[in-house]
């Protein structure tokens, strides 16, 4: 039995169907991310878990019992708000103690728990400050401590790091993961930032137009996206539309207008339609001056596309290239800068061969 079971939940606002027949199981101790573009219903789903919205249809089971009728203030679930929603008239200490006082905890126990929480989020010495006397990062910690103080069964985090700058966001991601592991608590985070979801979550649920379109580990989401939409939403991808021309022992030949015939390894479950898209992630496209020979021994089929480099973007860790094929199509490639000095770097205008293996290709229904 999962800790949290969402069964056929739907929610409409007027004519807009924010969440549409959504089912999902979340295990105890899991770090789960809901990822999707804005307006996809992920925040509405989170707010239904917190009890701020009621589902029109379906059930939400927590530890086996339906919580649909349980009011927010009676749920063993806490939420960390996107704007933190700290009480501006209360000190850090009183903000953290707020939920404990409502729970009727003894005064001495509250003091102990608050001290514990303050230490957990490293806010020692700031207990008497008011929220407007804190930096953005410190406010974020207070919000976290406040939502953790009641030791909820599930902690909901609504875009918790959106307001922080990049460096702080990265270090806070690590701290959140560490905290979740240490407390063994179940975290459900809502985010539109795929890197954030991939860094922190054990499993990611991708939402689009109120529906859950794929639930997978970060690797599977990226390397085996369930649809063309997900492949484009998560990360960068080159896509070539075409038709399946041949099919033999797990190897497809797709004839495309833009890149000719491409050899592709078939994924499970096999595609059923004839019209497909072949997808290849830019970092799996290598460039070379001469075409590499197929390694017949490893039975690695290699696709080769000849073209001219049009753009070179040096990004530090990687360099991304755009290669224009004779058909006019563009293939993007990104290659790691593994050496500080690269005398062999490709230049714009240079003729190259862009190549990738059949195993690195994704075949997606259009």
């Amino acid at each position, binding site marked *: 039995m999962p800790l949290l079971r969402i069964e056929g939940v739907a929610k409409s606002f007027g004519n807009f169907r924010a969440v549409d027949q959504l089912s999902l199981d979340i295990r105890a101790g899991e770090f789960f991310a809901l990822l999707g573009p804005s307006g996809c219903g992920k925040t509405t789903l989170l707010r239904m878990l917190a*009890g*701020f919205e009621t589902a029109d249809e379906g059930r939400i089971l927590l530890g086996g019992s339906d919580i649909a009728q349980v009011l927010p*203030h009676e749920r063993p679930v*806490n939420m960390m*708000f996107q704007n933190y929603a700290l*009480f501006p008239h209360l000190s850090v200490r009183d903000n953290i103690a707020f*939920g404990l006082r*409502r729970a009727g905890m003894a005064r001495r126990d509250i003091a102990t728990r608050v001290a514990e929480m303050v230490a957990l989020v490293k806010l020692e010495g700031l207990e008497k400050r008011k929220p*407007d006397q804190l930096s953005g990062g410190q406010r974020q910690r207070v919000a976290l401590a406040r939502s953790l103080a009641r030791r909820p069964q599930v902690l909901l985090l609504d875009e918790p790091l959106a307001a922080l700058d990049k460096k702080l966001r990265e270090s806070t991601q690590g701290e959140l993961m560490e905290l979740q592991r240490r407390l063994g608590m179940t975290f459900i985070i809502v985010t539109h930032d795929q890197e954030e979801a991939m860094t922190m979550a054990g499993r990611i649920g991708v939402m689009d137009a109120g529906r859950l379109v794929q639930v997978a580990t970060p690797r599977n989401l990226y390397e085996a996206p369930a649809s063309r939409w997900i492949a484009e939403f998560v990360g960068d991808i080159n896509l070539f539309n075409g038709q399946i021309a041949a099919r033999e022992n797990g190897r497809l030949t797709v004839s495309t207008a833009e890149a000719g015939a491409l050899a592709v390894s078939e994924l499970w479950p096999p595609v059923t339609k004839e019209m497909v898209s072949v997808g290849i992630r830019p970092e799996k496209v290598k460039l070379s001056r001469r075409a590499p020979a197929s390694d017949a021994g490893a039975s690695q089929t290699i696709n080769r596309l000849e073209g001219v480099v049009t753009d070179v973007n040096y990004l530090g860790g990687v360099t991304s290239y755009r290669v224009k094929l004779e058909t006019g199509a563009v293939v993007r490639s990104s290659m790691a800068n593994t050496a500080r000095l690269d005398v062999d770097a490709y230049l714009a205008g240079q003729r190259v061969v862009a190549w990738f293996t059949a195993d690195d290709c994704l075949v997606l229904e259009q």
Partner: protein
Amino acid sequence: MSARRIFARPARFAAIAPYLWMVLFFLVPFGFVLKISLSQTAIAQPPYTPVFDFTEGRAALAAAFAQLSFDNFRLLLQDNLYILSYLRSLVVAVTSTVVLLLIGYPIAYGMARLPQRWQGVAMMLVIVPFWTSFLIRIYAWINILQHDGLLNQILLALHIVSAPVVWLSTDSAMYLGIVYSYLPFMILPLYATLSKMDASLLEAAGDLGASPLQAFWLVTFPLSLPGVGAGALLCFIPIVGEFVIPDLLAGSNSLMIGQTLWLEFFTNKDWPVASAAAVALLLLLVPPLVLYDRLQRRQLAGGR
């Protein structure tokens, strides 16, 4: 700094404009009143001595100055008519302000929680009475409250009372008039603070285990205190000096300080005592203003 340079810089002029206004329309008239309050009444034109005459030379001016005394202020303390008027004004103002808060807060709260498009309509409804002259509205109340007025007619028709009730010239009528007239001044600042309150704070309170009632007392109310202070002050201060409403609606057995002032000034023609009473009233209103300012400063420094 020369006047020309001040006017050459519009921004600088804008910065001193309020001070200029205060000096011209408050400080200078207040100086006149203060001077008259230190003079003695006289059957003359103007009805007090001494009169400063700046053409008579320095010696005459010094002699006139020497005639000024605090006798009128002593009189205010000796004759309990004044002290009783002040006390009544304070009691009426405090009572009215409390009643206004009790009525105005729920209205402002309800307005702030209306859907956005209805909030403007509600705001209009609060302001609309201002389109009719204040005096006419008070006379309308006299009409409603008088012996054969609307209120008594309804009460008789419904057999709630068997004989007309005396409403006019009672404290109830006066409180009704005050609360009715000042309600918008209480509602508007309260509405301003309540409507800009972050709704997620209440959700956070609910999430952390506060019932809706607890969330109101622990979050909404404390955060609306600046509005409560502004509304209370905006009502309290003018009510202390209120003259028209008590004069038209209340009985004549106890007077508010505004009425006493009027009597001294127009009936007794005792300008100096009336001025002294006015100065004393102003001094009495300084402490609540300072207190409010201090509270607001602390709130600004403390957290927002």
